[in-house]
């Protein structure tokens, strides 16, 4: 019911929206909850377990009942709190957890079965038969109990992440936060003021008190205007600081566009902020707690502070006749605000015998509400006094059981809050989060004046610590009423009295947990589910532990709280992972030939972050094998061109460069002549192979190391470690030049012919033996040439500065095609190297040694190197270790599969009989059959034996002959020639 002339909404701006398909109208400034209340909608949701009709309980982010789904299709968002959702033109919201409709929910049958469904029911009932839990019980229970559902589609909305920095982060913009921001802002500190509400002011917007002689919300507006004029103050509205982390880091979630139907191009709906603050002031306020009594979840029963907020801020009364029940003077304040707004207050029920008198309303002292009636909306409450029970008609009830300071963030680094008996609540432990101070209601200061005072004092203390001078300014005048409260958690009596509305946990459930010996508060939480789900027990934790304390005969401080963990309120996974969906997960690295490969229709495969062409299909080729075989043929018979720029290249210089290489490689590099290249093997500290590659000596003190594509980063990191950590005195410098050079393999019998056609001066064969290197000129551009081969053919790699890479690739492929060859991709490259028995990381996969791959003699006996000693451990040199072999099916059409296991021909294929495994396979065009590399116990000792290759996953068994790993041109004549 809308109240005439009240509230901070803009009545000149009506807003139309829909709830469950019905059209409603509200005003700019309304939340979905306030607008629905104004339209007389009282039931906004169904409870989690019993499907009881529920109305809104609160006016803030702690709301447990009024959860709705907003939006449609892939932009659908479940579990949105109606109290936080601002209405906007075109807003569509739906109720949740009901079928077929909110008004008539078939699952409400659960409510009738309630006597059987108490805490622990599922655990005790669905135990047998055991397998039924996962298959039957859990799915059925999950379907019946629940919140909103996701759309199941990929996110249609954009989210983003961002970083912010400040001297002082003020969390909450009520009186304490505003005062802190003002004092710090005036002193010139970098301030971020964050508040979860759209409009800043906190309780000043919901109460009728004056500050500095003007209405509280007007004072707030004056302060905000001043803050906005300060360049050093940044205001972040609709921003919930949800977590406190190490090093003054705070997580915050900004709702950027949920209040609007607009979606400008590229705009995020939410921003996940990481805020790094030198200091923080927590001014998060407090959350009012209800009192548990029978049927206290009837729609129309809400916290007293929420009632005042709806009346004063939104100009809405939750009913025609609003009773008030409480245990502090807040009950009286609520009645006065209602009366001032012209709302009938049938009675104020105050549990305190010594409550102050009032002539404004009918006051029942020493009385409690013990029952409520009206299933779809409150009709009457039953009150209990010394004289007996009495029914009072009311369509709404404002309840206050006191306030719980919002201590959550102070507990995120594992501190526990401290109980204060005088105000019956937990307050933050001082110093619980380094650099963070609590001020105002979240610190247990409940009058406006003390909030202002604490906010100012906290800011002053921060400024002093940051070395800033601060003027002494008078504080604004404000109410300073004492907080008089007599604890009241639950009203005794029959029936169900709700503690946790969101999880349908009652006083009886908590008592039963205690009875069944779940006496620790953490056990009680898990047994009853109290404090779980989206509200994390913001409304119920303290009352539940008070009931537990009572049931176990302990005090509240002895019982203690459960652990507060971030986030304070829900954060969408879409916000946490913003920008990293799809290909945003990691950068894409494109070689200079990328566009040309795409243009040739090459399917690209990922190698680390790099994209490399798999093969280059030609018209008429129906599968990749045809393309691959053709490309292998280029290299074996004419000339093939492949982009090998993705291999790691490290430029190494300095007078100790040679010693450094001798130390990191297992073999010798100090003896390498300038202008020559050598294959090198690198071990880890534990003696296993880390990486391999070629290293060229470009000058006396200048080397160029290459690494595999996959291990380029790892090798660089390793070199840094060795230099900085093990040999810091050696004068050696290195830097990656992977990106600087575009490098292409030119391989095949016509490789030299091709190169002679493009180099500015033809190659003199005598100057370019196998494993030589040197400077060349291409089109006047200084390049480098290396006579190395990964294919077993006469091979070169030519490198030019990357800006010329695309152009050189085009020229090389054109020339190659003219010579009967062309570009080849990763598939052909793989076939070429398997035919030659050259290893990749499929073989040096981290569990193999130099001995295992047949390169034991590459660990030089003449010098020390990283991993040498460890590689000499006896267990690593045993002859029956799994060692590298070649494998060839005994039938030419036999299939081989990488990952398959090897067994003796006669042994059944079970783990105990394992003899080894297959690492690489291909169809060899040269041999006309499949071949493979693998590791076999005894390795080279077993050449000529027949073993069984078995792939249980894909159901393939193939008998293979064990061979040497080199299948083609074993003496290497083609490569050297």
């Amino acid at each position, binding site marked *: 019911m809308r109240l005439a002339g009240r509230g901070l909404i803009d009545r000149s701006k009506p807003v139309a929206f829909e709830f469950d398909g019905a059209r409603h109208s509200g005003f700019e400034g309304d939340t979905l909850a306030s607008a629905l209340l104004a339209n007389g909608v009282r039931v906004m949701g169904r409870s989690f377990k019993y499907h009881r009709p529920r109305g809104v309980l609160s006016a803030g982010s702690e709301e447990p009942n009024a959860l709705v789904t907003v939006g449609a299709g892939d932009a659908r968002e479940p579990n949105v709190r109606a109290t936080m959702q601002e209405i906007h033109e075109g807003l569509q919201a739906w109720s949740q957890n009901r079928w077929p409709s909110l008004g008539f929910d078939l699952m409400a049958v659960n409510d009738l079965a309630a006597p059987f469904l108490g805490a622990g029911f599922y655990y005790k009932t669905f135990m047998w038969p055991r397998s039924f839990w996962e298959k039957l019980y859990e799915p059925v229970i999950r379907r019946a109990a629940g919140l909103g559902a996701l759309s199941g589609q990929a996110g249609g909305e*954009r989210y*983003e*992440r*961002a*970083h*912010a*920095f400040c001297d002082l982060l003020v969390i909450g913009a009520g009186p304490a936060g505003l005062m802190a921001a003002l004092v710090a802002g005036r002193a010139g500190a*970098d301030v971020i003021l964050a508040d979860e509400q759209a409009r800043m002011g906190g309780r000043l917007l919901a109460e009728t008190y004056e500050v500095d002689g003007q209405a509280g919300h007007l004072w707030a507006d004056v302060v905000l205007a001043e803050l906005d004029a300060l360049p050093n103050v940044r205001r972040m509205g609709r921003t919930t600081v949800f977590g406190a982390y190490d090093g003054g880091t705070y997580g915050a979630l900004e709702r*950027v566009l949920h209040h609007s139907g607009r979606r*400008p*191009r*590229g*705009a*995020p709906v939410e921003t996940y902020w*990481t805020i790094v603050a030198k200091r923080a002031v927590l001014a998060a306020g407090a959350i009012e707690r209800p009192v548990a009594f029978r049927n206290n979840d009837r729609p129309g029963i809400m916290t007293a502070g929420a009632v005042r907020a709806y009346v004063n801020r939104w100009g809405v009364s939750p009913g025609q006749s609003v009773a008030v029940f409480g245990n502090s003077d807040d009950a009286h304040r609520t009645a006065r605000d209602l009366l001032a707004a012209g709302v009938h207050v049938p009675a104020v029920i105050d549990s305190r015998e010594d409550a102050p008198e009032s002539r404004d309303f009918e006051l029942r002292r020493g009385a409690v509400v013990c029952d409520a009636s009206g299933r779809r909306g409150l009709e009457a409450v039953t009150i209990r006094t010394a004289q007996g029970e009495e029914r009072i008609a009311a369509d709404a009830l404002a309840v206050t059981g006191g306030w719980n300071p919002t201590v959550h963030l102070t507990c995120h680094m594992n501190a526990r809050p401290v109980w204060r008996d005088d105000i019956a609540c937990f307050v933050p432990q001082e110093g619980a989060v380094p650099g963070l101070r609590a001020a105002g209601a979240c610190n247990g200061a409940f009058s406006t004046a003390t909030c202002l005072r604490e906010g100012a004092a906290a800011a002053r203390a921060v400024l002093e610590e940051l070395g800033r001078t601060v003027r002494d300014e008078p504080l604004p005048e404000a109410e300073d009423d004492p907080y008089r409260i007599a604890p009241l958690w639950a009203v005794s009596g029959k029936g169900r009295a709700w503690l946790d509305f969101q999880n349908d946990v009652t006083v009886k459930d908590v008592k039963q947990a205690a009875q069944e010996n779940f006496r620790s508060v953490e056990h009680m939480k898990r047994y009853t589910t109290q404090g779980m789900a989206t509200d994390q027990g913001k409304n119920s934790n303290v009352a539940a532990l008070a009931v537990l304390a009572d049931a176990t005969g302990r005090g509240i401080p002895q019982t203690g709280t459960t652990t507060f963990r971030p986030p304070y309120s829900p954060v969408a996974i879409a916000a946490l992972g913003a*920008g*990293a969906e799809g290909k*945003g*997960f*990691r*950068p*894409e*690295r*494109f*070689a*200079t030939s990328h566009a040309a490969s795409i243009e040739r229709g090459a399917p690209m495969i990922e190698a680390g*972050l*790099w994209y490399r062409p798999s093969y280059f299909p030609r018209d008429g080729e129906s599968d990749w094998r045809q393309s691959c075989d053709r490309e292998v043929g280029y290299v074996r018979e004419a000339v093939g061109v492949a982009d090998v720029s993705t291999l790691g290249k490290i*430029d190494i*210089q*300095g*007078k100790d460069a040679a010693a450094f290489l001798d130390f990191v490689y297992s073999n010798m590099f100090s003896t390498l002549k300038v202008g020559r290249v050598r294959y090198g093997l690198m071990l880890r500290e534990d003696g296993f192979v880390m990486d391999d590659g070629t290293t060229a000596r470009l000058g006396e003190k200048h080397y160029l190391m290459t690494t595999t594509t996959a291990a380029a980063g790892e090798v660089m990191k390793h070199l840094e470690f060795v230099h*900085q950590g093990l040999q810091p*005195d050696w*004068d050696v*410098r*290195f*830097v*990656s*030049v*992977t*990106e*600087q*050079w575009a490098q292409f393999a030119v391989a095949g019998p016509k490789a030299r012919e091709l190169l002679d056609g*493009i180099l*500015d001066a033809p190659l003199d064969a005598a100057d370019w033996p196998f494993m030589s290197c040197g400077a060349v000129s*291409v*089109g*006047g*551009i200084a390049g480098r040439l290396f006579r190395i081969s990964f294919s077993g053919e006469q091979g070169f790699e030519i490198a*030019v*500065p*990357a*800006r*010329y*890479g*695309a*152009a*050189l690739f085009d*020229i090389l492929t054109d020339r190659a095609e003219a010579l009967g060859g062309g570009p080849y991709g990763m598939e052909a490259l793989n076939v070429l190297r398997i035919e030659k028995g050259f290893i990749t990381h499929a073989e040096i996969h981290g569990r193999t040694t130099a001995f295992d791959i047949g390169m034991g003699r590459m660990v030089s006996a003449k010098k020390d190197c990283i991993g040498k000693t460890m590689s000499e451990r006896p267990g690593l040199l045993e002859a029956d270790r799994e060692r590298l072999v070649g494998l060839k099916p005994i039938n030419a059409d036999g299939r081989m599969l990488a990952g398959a296991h090897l067994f003796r021909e006669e042994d059944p294929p079970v783990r105990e009989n394992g003899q080894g495994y297959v690492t690489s396979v291909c169809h060899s065009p040269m041999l006309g059959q499949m071949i493979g590399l693998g590791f076999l116990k005894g390795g080279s000792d077993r050449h000529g034996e027949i073993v069984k290759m078995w792939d249980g996953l894909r159901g393939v068994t193939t008998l293979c002959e064990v061979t040497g790993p080199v299948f083609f041109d074993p003496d290497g004549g083609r490569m050297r020639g």
Partner: protein
Amino acid sequence: MVELVARTPCAGLLPLRVGAVLLDEVAPGALTSVSPYKGQAEALSKVLQAAHGMGFPAPSRATGDRQARAIWFGHGQAMLVGPAPDPALADHAALTDQSDAWAAVRLHGPGAEDVLARLVPVDLRAGSFPEGHSMRSLLFHMTASITRIEDGAFLILAFRSMAATLVHDLQTAMEAVAARG
């Protein structure tokens, strides 16, 4: 003789303007990695000063100006940006040509800081990161060198191979900033 045509890392991707923020590819001239040998840092700085007009930069700083700049690039390493390195530098430092290794872009205009705040986990506001400051940090998922140069613009260097992702990530952030108006 064949003719090799040069392509810049961001060819076809830039320039870009979204709202008030501009992103251009810059031609920085030569890029040379300069790593002083053991005990040579001071001598190198003097030669650098004499040859190119700026000293060796302290960590997270850049020296020089538009014509010739030295950007701190990591532990014991600076990037000489602009001129071809004076051969005298080689007596004191390992020099490595990196002219083709890095995509160089310039982000400028009001809101450039807000764009980078979406990608870089470092305080780049003018008060904390004035002209002459430089940072090796993350730009979303890639590593980058970010320097505040003249006119409050940012010079960003990222791996050449990642140029497409660099532009994509910056454009995404530019759109998000512009959409807030």
